[in-house]
């Protein structure tokens, strides 16, 4: 009995975790117009529907752009900040680190609201770029923290060795630091893409005509309960899962 308890718990937990996702995916194959029992189907009707929906596909493209663009900026800034703080003595470096980490302790809504106020007051106006700026604000701390934590003494000595052998600062970074930190940089990038891809409230507040997928889904959600939502949700989920599994198998498995 006691031996079975952990397994029973594990099973219950997985049921809880997969209940909404399973329901979502199941009813994306619903034939009828309502994603609730009874299940009629299976049918790919709604997948066809979303794939031919220009707004939705446009939002998907926007989301990809914002996610990859903002993550590239966040990781670049985070990397250089980590490099500067880990490899050079700066006065008040603990404070600087605190400042860089600070957005992590603030709700997204507040970040978005503050930016909204400033952007509209200064007349900069809203666009995908401003949403991207917001995403960099929230992802920079994570990218910085992950890369900073990975900058150990081992890399430092390798950098010194490279310098000792005649490499300039740019060469040290390009030929030694970045390649050695690649796993951490990739992890930061991947996490950042995931968070940006999924982020709603900042994108909601800071975009205008072109919106990201979560915002588009939100307005879809406001315009009718429909298996379309299940279909787009399932599609995003299944594609992401495929990417995650691929990464897991190709990239992370290799590491000991």
């Amino acid at each position, binding site marked *: 009995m006691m031996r079975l308890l952990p397994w029973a718990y594990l099973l219950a937990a997985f049921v809880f975790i997969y209940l909404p996702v399973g329901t979502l995916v199941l009813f994306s194959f619903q034939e009828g117009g309502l994603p609730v029992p009874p299940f009629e189907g299976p049918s790919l009707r709604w997948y066809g529907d979303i794939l031919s929906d*220009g707004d939705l596909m446009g939002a998907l493209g926007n989301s990809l752009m914002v996610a990859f663009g903002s993550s590239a900026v966040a990781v670049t800034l985070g990397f250089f900040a980590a490099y500067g703080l880990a490899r050079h003595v700066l006065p008040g470096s603990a404070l600087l680190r605190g400042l860089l980490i600070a957005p992590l302790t603030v709700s997204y809504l507040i970040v978005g609201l503050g930016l909204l106020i400033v952007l509209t007051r200064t007349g900069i106006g809203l666009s995908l770029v401003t949403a991207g700026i917001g995403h960099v604000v929230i992802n920079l701390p994570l990218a910085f923290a992950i890369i900073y934590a990975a900058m150990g003494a081992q890399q430092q000595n390798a950098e010194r060795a490279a310098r000792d052998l005649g490499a300039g600062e740019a060469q040290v970074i390009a030929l030694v630091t970045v390649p050695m930190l690649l796993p951490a940089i990739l992890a930061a990038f991947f996490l950042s893409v995931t968070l940006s891809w999924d982020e709603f409230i900042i994108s909601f507040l800071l975009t205008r*005509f072109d919106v990201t997928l979560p915002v588009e889904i939100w307005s879809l959600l*406001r*315009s009718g*309960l429909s298996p379309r939502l299940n279909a787009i949700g399932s599609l995003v989920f299944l594609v992401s899962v495929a990417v995650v599994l691929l990464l897991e198998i190709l990239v992370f498995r290799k590491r000991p």
Partner: protein
Amino acid sequence: EGELNALVWCDHTDPALIEPFEEAHDVKVNLREYEGTGAALALLDQSRPGDWDVLVIDGIDVFRAVEAGILAPLPADELPTADFFPEVVMEANNTVDGTTYAVTEKFGYNTISYNSDKVDAADMESLSTVWSEKYDGRISIYDYYLPVMGLAAIAEGIPTADIDAEALDTIGGTLSTMRSRAASVAGVVAAQTALATGEVDIVVGGGEWLTAGLAGEQPELTWTIPEEGAVLWSQSIGVLEGSEQPDLALEFVKYITGPEGQARLATSSCFWGMPANAKAGDVLSDDQKALLRWDQQPDYLERTQLYPAPDMDLDIEMQDLWLETLQQ
């Protein structure tokens, strides 16, 4: 290819509505949805002149936009108002000091939607029995304070036009009862969902806009205007002051208010509603007209009242009362 920027309600985002116009005028129509008039006005405040070309707004709030100086005059003679149901031309809403600033494009009712399989249809004919003990926990309230408070006023025998600070005490009591019976307070979709999935059986503040789109699949979802009457909603469309392409914007307004545009707007994916232009009836199918209850309109228009139109202070009081009730 030009661009036209429109600040609209969700029913205007249906590609079936927009694409024909885009093709005809070789233009890209950028749409931004909003929910409440306050938000739209704030957004326009923060924009530069020329950012926006077209605005869709609650009929009742046109005067606020005019006061703020953001709407441009419309050439009244070029608009097809002659083809409109006369009751919804609503000069009082759309015209200030003799100048026309907007034109009605769609209307309908905030009343009672329900599931006829689950509730006694007779009970729905009187507001007093709708939110009675009998339907405790089976009601959802539409999450917009103006029509719902209008309904509450109507239930208490207060005309919506007469709502003032004093009347709010009475209305507050009714709202509170309504709220205590309600399982949820829901936006358009949440309300639709709740009704469609059997989460609730009644939506107070609903109407054709909530159930007509679902009726194909679930004919048991229906709506009625009870004997006390209900609230009439209307939305207007206008051109913004400072628009860099006023002509194109006007073309858009004409398209939306013309028979084809009206038919598409009436049956757009976000919510259905009656077209202001009666000529749309030639384009709509019989089934669609039946769902919209085309033929009952004269009777309905007779029995319903416009949204409350509070001034700034009263509006704030009404919103506070609304939020207070939600949080009770």
